[in-house]
Structures are given as structure tokens and as C-alpha cells.
């Protein structure tokens, strides 16, 4: 069914179920408990996780399969964001035209940048993509101010023409919507001492991310995906086997650029404000981190990496000294101060330090990322009853 094997179909069903149930699953702690701040089931965070999962899954089609490390994918995110805002300004607050345009523009930009950058491989390719992305950033920041509104960022305003629905909105800027369904519409359900928030914006992002995941799954299992893996493995042999690696690379680059454009479009659709910092090289680096942290070249890895980084970014940066003091208040005063002083650099503003340490740990001890960690645990668990834990190529290739 759906062109997938039974195993993959099962896999896709599980991912779909987890995505749909995320508002419940990510809210495990009751509101009243001290652990409630570790809940991730609020719309803003879940939207971000879904969007960055799309970004990372697309990036992985390029980096994971072909091994070409692009350091400029944030440029496509930025292009997608600006495209969506412009559609909001010119056409309507319906997110559909904006998202379609962001995918298209992401693809076109990726074609142009890829066409030049793919003349080189390895570090030179990375540097070229980085240079292009920084050029886009600087253009958006200063030169193209009429298009991007420079540093302060672009957002829909009351004076915009909005030819399709300006009249209906009355005297306010309407919220982004999908045929009238506002992206900020949230249905709250109180049960078991928890507040579950079912947000329209999250479900739009979630459904699109499942579709994109399905697309990536198809690409991974296709002859095209096999050729991309062959490029990573031995491009020399591939050329002598009668295949031209250049157009394969360029297609992979454009597909991942379209994923990035889509992610940018969705970011702007959820929160209609696009600034140039979305294109900066730190943003390009973040998606590399997500992919490597989760597991390069695996299907689920980038999703896990995106979720992991966005979750910790939100949760760790919320913890401040007051929170820390309340955690350690059971200790004597001097010990409490020492504990807070030790943990202080790792939370709040310093959460990047935590991320850095985690990233180093993963790269050194789990080169295959979180997925490899999961596989190792699974293998340990399986070895005990059966006694045969020999990993076969089939297992490794499946995830």
C-alpha cells in the first residue's frame, strides 16, 4: 500500500500516530506538579519541532544520502519565509499560496546555488554554500531592504493591498489561516489534571511533516535514493558505471532546498514575521547539528534531532536561578548555593553549553547519533532472551 513495504507502512503509521497524539504525549506532567515546566505540549514548541523536523528530513536527503555537507540551507528557509509574508501582504492571509510559493522559490534558489556549488566537492562545496547563504543574509539585511524590511523584519501590515481578503478583515490584520481556520485556534481539554492543547497550526505543520516524511521514505527506498547512497560510497565507480552523478546531486540539492523553503514558509505562516537572522550561518549550522545528533542518513534521526534540540532550547533556556534555588531548597544554604553555581552556566542563557557538551558526547560515543543509541539499547535487550545479537546489514539499512 502507498508503494511501501509492510515494514515501512508500519513505520509510517507509528510516526503518524505519534505526530497526531503529540499534544497528549508531550504533556506527561500534571499542571500542579513541579515537573510541569518540562512539558512540551504547547503549540509554539510543537509547531517548531514539526517545522524543523521537515527542514532536517530534507537536509538529510542531501547530507545523509550523498554525504555532501551544505552549510547554507538556512538561505532557503529565509527565502521561504519572505515569500510567505509577501503572499500575506499581496494576496491573502490564507497560508496556502505562501507555502506553495515558498516551496517553489526554495527549489529555484537551490537550483541556482547548487548549479554553481556542485562543481566542487568536500570542504569546497561546503564553503561555497556557506558563502552563498551569507550573501543572501547580507542582501536581506541591507541591500534588499525594500523587499525584506532589513533588520527589523518583514510582517503583514494594515496598509497592505491583500487583494483577496483585505475587505473582509475589517480594521485589523487577520491572523494567518487555512480557508478560515486560524492558525492560532486552540482547543483546550482539561483532563487528569493536565491541560491538553490541540492547536490548528500544529496540526497543519504535523500533517505536512508526516507527508514530507512519507516522501522522504519513498525517496530512500527508490532507485534514485540508491544512486545517492552510491555517490556517497564511491562516486568514481558510479561514473564508470554509466551514471552521471552531477544531475543526481543537483536533484537531491533542489529537493532538500524545497524542503527548506517549505519549512521557512511554515515558520512564517505560524508566526508572520521574517527577519534576516533566519538565514544566518548559525541557522544553517543548527540543521547540521540536528541531523548529526539524530543520526545522519537515517530516516527518523533528523526528526529526533530536531525535536531534541528544539525541546532543550525551550526548556533549558526557561530555567533560571530562581527555579534552580527552588529545586535545591532542601539542601543546607551553602550547599544549595554551590549546586546552583555549578548548574547555572548550563541553563538559561547558557543552554548552548549543554547542547555543545551533548553534541560532543554523541559524536564521540555514538557516531550514528541518537538512532544508534536506540539500536544499541534494542540490541542489548534482544540479546538477553535470544542470544543472537549479530547485527546484519539488513537491520542497519532499514533505519
Amino acid at each position: 500500500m502507498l508503494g511501501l513495504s509492510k515494514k515501512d507502512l508500519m513505520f509510517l503509521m507509528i510516526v503518524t500516530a505519534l505526530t497526531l497524539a503529540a499534544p497528549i504525549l508531550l504533556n506527561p506532567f500534571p499542571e500542579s506538579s513541579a515537573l510541569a515546566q518540562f512539558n512540551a505540549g504547547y503549540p509554539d514548541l510543537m509547531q517548531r519541532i514539526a517545522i524543523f523536523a521537515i527542514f532536517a528530513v530534507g537536509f538529510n536527503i542531501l547530507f545523509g544520502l550523498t554525504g555532501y555537507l551544505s552549510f547554507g540551507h538556512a538561505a532557503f528557509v529565509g527565502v521561504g519565509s519572505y515569500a510567505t509574508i509577501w503572499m500575506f501582504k499581496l494576496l491573502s492571509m490564507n497560508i496556502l499560496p505562501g507555502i506553495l510559493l515558498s516551496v517553489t522559490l526554495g527549489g529555484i534558489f537551490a537550483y541556482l546555488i547548487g548549479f554553481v556549488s556542485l562543481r566542487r566537492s568536500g570542504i569546497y562545496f561546503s564553503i561555497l554554500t556557506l558563502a552563498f547563504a551569507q550573501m543572501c543574509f547580507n542582501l536581506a539585511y541591507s541591500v534588499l531592504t525594500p523587499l525584506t524590511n532589513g533588520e527589523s523584519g518583514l510582517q503583514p501590515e494594515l496598509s497592505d493591498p491583500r487583494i483577496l481578503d483585505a475587505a473582509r478583515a475589517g480594521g485589523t490584520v487577520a491572523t494567518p489561516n487555512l480557508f478560515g481556520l486560524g492558525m492560532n485556534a486552540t482547543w483546550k481539554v482539561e483532563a487528569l489534571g493536565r491541560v491538553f492543547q490541540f492547536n490548528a497550526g500544529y496540526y497543519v505543520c504535523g500533517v505536512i511533516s508526516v507527508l514530507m516524511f512519507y516522501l522522504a521514505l519513498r525517496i530512500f527506498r527508490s532507485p534514485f535514493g540508491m544512486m545517492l547512497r552510491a555517490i556517497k560510497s564511491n562516486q568514481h565507480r558510479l561514473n564508470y558505471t554509466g551514471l552521471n552523478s552531477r544531475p543526481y546531486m543537483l536533484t537531491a540539492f533542489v529537493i532538500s532546498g524545497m524542503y527548506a523553503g517549505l519549512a521557512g514558509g511554515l515558520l512564517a505562516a505560524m508566526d508572520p514575521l521574517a527577519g534576516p537572522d533566519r538565514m544566518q550561518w548559525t541557522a544553517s549550522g543548527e540543521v547540521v547539528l540536528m541531523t548529526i545528533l539524530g543520526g545522519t542518513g537515517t530516516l527518523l534521526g533528523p526528526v529526533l534531532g530536531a525535536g531534541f534540540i528544539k525541546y532543550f532550547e525551550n526548556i533549558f533556556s526557561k530555567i533560571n536561578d530562581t527555579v534552580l534555588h527552588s529545586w535545591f531548597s532542601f539542601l543546607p544554604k551553602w550547599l544549595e548555593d554551590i549546586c546552583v553555581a555549578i548548574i547555572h552556566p548550563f541553563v538559561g542563557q547558557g543552554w548552548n553549553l549543554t547542547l555543545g557538551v551533548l553534541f560532543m558526547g554523541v559524536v564521540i560515543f555514538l557516531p550514528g547519533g541518537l538512532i544508534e543509541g536506540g539500536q544499541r539499547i534494542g540490541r542489548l535487550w534482544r540479546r538477553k532472551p535470544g542470544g543472537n545479537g549479530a547485527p546484519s546489514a539488513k537491520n542497519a539499512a532499514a533505519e
Partner: protein
Amino acid sequence: MGILEVKGVNKRFGGLQALGDVNLSVAENTVHAIIGPNGAGKSTLLNCLVGKLIPDTGSVLFSGQSVLGRKPHEINQMGISRVFQTPEIFGDLTVLENVLIPCFAKRDGAYRLHAFESVADERDITAHAEQMLRDVKMWDKRDMLARALSRGDKRRLEMAMCLSQHPKLLLLDEPTAGMARADTNNTIDLLKEIKARGDITMVIIEHDMHVVFSLADRITVLAQGTPLVEDVPANIKGHPKVQEAYLGQAHQAH
């Protein structure tokens, strides 16, 4: 006229004349061996045939068409496959996938966007690749990662990859280099089998005279970039010029 015609090929690397006026004509469906001491220019010649190097002067015609200036994938699409001196395979892919890729290349050409089809649904191609693996007796290793194979198996796999495309011309660069005796004999048997089908031309570069004399229909002896003799194997063995070339090298070596 032969299927492969090399005419007046010269190749210079700085001050070194690697190939000097090489002429070679390979008849269709024969096995042509190129032998010669180290540094005679055998590999350079082969590289000129597959587009890795472009000769300074001269022409290389395959089935009447020039291969010069064409990219490696274009030359392969013309019907020339090459086995390398050190096996070139896709180490991170399974053995079966290694054979599937050349099958796709043969059917779909140098590029095709088949991103939404499933490999598992391509039954014809899969069946062909599986048959190929049975032919080279690697069927039970089909799900292994190719890099985990022994050297001999890697070589067999590379040959299966080339043969799966049914090339008109198969170029073999020292197909038994560094192999154990048993593996060498297996390779000879495999090549003999392929030769017996009578629909493929082979050019073999080889140091192992046992391999050369059990397979070749004609032999060209290359020394210092120029062909010394070209003849049938029986006449090559006792040829004075050949003995001189090899003995001369032996004298220098000591």
C-alpha cells in the same frame, strides 16, 4: 576493422613519454592481452580508453566512434565497462545493491529521476541482478555490506557489476593482482566462461603469464610506452624481443 581501434596515441607526463605512437586493433569477440614490464604504459593506455586521460595526439575509436573527450559515464553508456586494479565497489551498499546500480544504469541511461518508484517493485531488474550473483556464486552473500567482502569476492562482485551491463567491451586491469592461487583460478574459470559465450570483447592487462596464456587470443607486448610485438600467444612465448624486454628489466632490478 576491429571493434577497438587505437591509432598513433601519444601521451606525455612532463618529461616522461608514457605512450609513444601506440597502435592497437582489437577484433570483435576476442580476448586481447596487453603485457609488459612495470612502467611500460599499460595502465596509461587503459586510462586513455575510458576517458580518464586524454591522449596528446592520436585517436581511439570504439565501434567506429571516437571516445576521446567523452566523460566516463558516456563511454560506459557506449558499451565499455572497466574492472579496476584495486576493486572499485560501493562499500556502504549491500552486494545485491551493488549489482542493481549498473542494471539501472543500463536500462535508464546516465540520469533518470526515479525518486518515487520502489527498488523492490523493479522485478525484472532485481531478477537479472540476482541471476548475475548466482552466476558468480555470490548469491548467499547478497545481503552483506560490500566492504565486508574478502578481496577475491570484491573482485568477483566488480566483475558481476560490469557483466550485468552486457558490455561490448570489457577492460580488465590486472584482474588477479594480489589474489591467492585458488582465487586466481576461479577468476580464470569465470573469464573463460564469459569468453565461451562469444559475445564480448575483452582487453586484459596482466602480470600473471598463467592468466594471460590461458585466456588471450592475441597479445601485445608493451615496453617503455611503445608496442614491441603483437601476435598470437604461441609466438609470443619464445620471441627474442619479449625476452629482452623482460630480462632487461630483470638486469636493472638487480
